[in-house]
């Protein structure tokens, strides 16, 4: 009797993990379509998937461990590497976008980086 109950509880936990993960990844794709420019889209693309992938990986890990008794280290490693690489790629893409002179969305936006780049380039041009 108790065995069945534990099975059901584990199933529910695994389903919740998977559903939360999928929900966050789905939200990311909607965010990618809805947001106005590269930078705000990078916000959506770097933040929500981390928790989405965490949810899916942990769900898969729990399922494999409980159903088949496999401790899958690969899933945990995958999670770790996603957490390490996502912010780096977000940083590089938005930096590349800024260097290709893609303007920020909105009116009268504050942009300290553009000013810094201009200040660095101008003295060289005048000399």
């Amino acid at each position, binding site marked *: 009797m108790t065995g069945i109950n534990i099975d059901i509880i584990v199933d529910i936990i695994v389903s919740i993990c998977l559903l939360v993960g999928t929900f966050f990844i789905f939200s990311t794709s909607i965010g990618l379509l809805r947001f106005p420019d590269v*930078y705000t889209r990078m916000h959506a693309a770097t933040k929500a998937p981390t928790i989405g992938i965490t949810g899916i990986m942990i769900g898969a890990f729990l399922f494999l461990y409980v159903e088949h008794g496999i401790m899958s280290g690969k899933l945990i490693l995958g999670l770790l590497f996603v957490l390490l690489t*996502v912010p780096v790629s977000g*940083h590089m893409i938005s930096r590349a976008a800024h260097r290709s002179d893609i303007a920020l969305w909105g009116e009268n936006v504050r942009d300290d980086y553009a000013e*810094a780049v201009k200040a660095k380039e101008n003295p060289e041009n005048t000399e």
Partner: protein
Amino acid sequence: MPFQILLNILIAVMWMFMSESYTFSTFFSGYLIGILLLLVLQRFIPDAFYMERVIKVFKLMILFTKELILSNIEIVKLVYKPKLDIKPGIFALPTELKSDWEITLLANLISLTPGTLSIAVSDDNSLIYVHAMHLEDTEAAITDIKETFEKAIMEVTR
């Protein structure tokens, strides 16, 4: 600190030999006993007790996880908001961190926290340019990051 870790591993291996069982769990219990010994004898060992730093690393990880979950909820809220009333902008964040390793960590932490995304690091490593989703009060944003992340990183590395 490396000396203390080495000592701790040595104690764990000795524990393994004394209890004559060569499994990971014995090693682990030996390691725990080593931590206890180092804690008791910390007056006679050079440098500060290294577990203090480990605890600080754990604190940083807990802070990071909390901020990560908050940022996810915030971005999902924005995604499903019918009208986008955001005001994005890029501000310069002055940082006191020096080494490449610390700055990389700070930039990555900024990228994964609510409403901010690090765009670039200035050549002399003194400024990090941060894109904010909703930039109303620049000073508040700067002090917020400085109070939480920079402080926590400095506690770990110094």
